[in-house]
């Protein structure tokens, strides 16, 4: 058995476990937690395309979640268009907004870029909180939009039970992970890494760094919007604070950073570690110790940045490689 076969076997086992979980986990609460876990894993993996591979720190990604959520919701509530189509429209819109934001901001240095993304995100959120109508589209300001669960079924992206949502988000997560893997091995992936590490050297090797970053941003915002639609169809109520808030943007970034941005497994790992902390501390300590999970987040974040700045996936990957080398000898090719 060679290393790559071993890896494929591990992936198959993981996939089987993931597919079979709903059969074992029957409690609706736990299933809900799992769904949110996968949702955040999806969000952070999408974020990773810009925040990890392109090497910048975008702190306003929730805005794309919001654009996706509002677009599909408005299209389905006001015009009866299927949420699946709305999802695509929202993604395209999100992509355009992402490029618009990226064009002027990618030229800035790190801290300024982070601030600019925050400013954009908050600006858009403030706008949504203050208008009732955007042209013919009803936004409803801070009250938000409710989705009445009238018709169920796959065509309407609406289900009575949680299981279908579980499988949909699992499929989305698998898709975005596969896409990230493909990109990391593609010309764009190499160019993004090069441009992120040494922009001048990369440019002299033929890399149009700005264009690569914009492509990454377009893809990332496109994919993030999908999650917005999912969220809307899952929770059936959206308002600016619930889909566009800075808290969401920061949580996405934190999870990716703690797990290890720039790697494929890092964001998922981060989500698997931190989301349960978040959910369980809210369930058990929500009333007695509010905000406990955020304190834990903050502490973990600081500890990781101080001791393992490449994220928690680093020691795990190293251990995995050691085991592989021990078993099969020779050098395991860098993933």
């Amino acid at each position, binding site marked *: 058995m060679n290393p790559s076969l071993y890896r494929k076997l591990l992936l198959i086992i993981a996939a089987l476990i993931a597919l079979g979980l709903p059969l074992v986990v029957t409690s609706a609460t736990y299933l809900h937690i799992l769904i949110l876990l996968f949702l955040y894993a999806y969000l952070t993996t999408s974020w990773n395309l810009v925040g990890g591979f392109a090497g910048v720190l975008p702190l306003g990604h929730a805005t794309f979640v919001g654009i996706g959520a509002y677009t599909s919701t408005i299209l389905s509530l006001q015009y009866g268009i299927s949420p699946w189509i709305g999802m695509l429209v929202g993604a395209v819109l999100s992509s355009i907004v992402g490029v618009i934001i990226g064009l002027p901001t990618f030229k800035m240095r790190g801290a300024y870029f982070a601030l600019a993304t925050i400013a954009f995100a908050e600006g858009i959120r403030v706008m949504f909180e203050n208008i009732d109508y955007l042209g013919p589209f009803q936004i409803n300001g801070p009250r938000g939009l409710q989705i009445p669960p009238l018709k169920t079924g796959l065509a309407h992206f609406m289900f009575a039970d949680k299981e279908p949502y579980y499988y949909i988000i699992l499929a989305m997560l698998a898709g975005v992970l596969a896409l990230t893997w493909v990109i990391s091995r593609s010309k764009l992936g*190499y*160019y993004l890494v090069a441009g992120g*590490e*040494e922009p001048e050297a*990369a440019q*002299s090797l*033929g*890399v149009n760094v700005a264009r690569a970053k914009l492509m990454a941003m377009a893809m990332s915002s496109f994919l993030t919007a999908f999650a917005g639609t999912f969220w809307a169809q899952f929770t059936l109520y959206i308002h600016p604070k619930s889909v566009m808030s800075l808290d969401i943007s920061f949580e996405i970034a934190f999870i990716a950073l703690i797990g290890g941005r720039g790697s494929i497994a890092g964001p998922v790992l981060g989500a698997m570690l931190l989301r349960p902390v978040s959910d369980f501390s809210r369930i058990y300590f929500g009333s007695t110790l509010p905000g406990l999970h955020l304190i834990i987040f903050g502490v973990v974040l600081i500890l990781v940045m101080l001791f393992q700045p490449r994220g928690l996936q680093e020691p795990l990957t190293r251990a995995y490689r050691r085991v592989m080398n021990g078993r099969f000898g020779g050098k395991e090719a860098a993933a």
Partner: protein
Amino acid sequence: MNILEIQQVKKYFGGIKAVESFSLNVGEGEIVGLIGPNGAGKSTLFNCVAGVFPPTSGDILFLGEKINGQKPWDLCHKGLARTFQIVKPFASRTVLYNVVVGAFATTDKRSEAETRALEVLRHLRMEEKKDLRAGNLTIADRKRLEIAKALATQPKLLLLDEVMAGLRPTEVDEMVAIIKHLREYGMTIFVIEHIMRAIMALSDRIAVLHFGTKIAEGTPQEIARDERVIKAYLGEDYGAA
């Protein structure tokens, strides 16, 4: 045809005249050296040619086309590659990864890029180091990697910016052999160097820059005897490495 024609290029930074009316032609297959005391303006000239910034006046022609102010990545696709004096490897990645980035300049497929990268590494005798982390390399290896990255882009003109700096004498000799070897692959090379015996051994012709002006141009032997050059380098003797 001349691969590179620098025609009366001036580069001013505000009041500072870094390069003053410099002209030079580099013919196909030549190795041309550029020397001069520190601060003479050599790197500034390179940066003008390589597209980092445009010349204040004058023209730069590459393969007959005027390239003033064109961007480095576009120039790379036209066949102009450069190395940096302060080496900038993609430190967190392997040697192979670094070179593949360069190889992608002429292909979109990773398999092709990898094949080309391995070929380049083989020519530079770095193949066994392909899986090492670039950030962990010695300075000599990093300089070689820098050349490998540029080579992978399949350039017609290679600009080498002080690739010998910091190398030990044996490493310098190795590097000279490698660069001479490159010429056999149809490459034209424009070198900035401080280490005299290296540039004397390498170059077909040498231009000397002093305070932004060209004070001499000729074969290595002519340059070594040129009084103006000796005066500019007062105290520096040919043969020091």
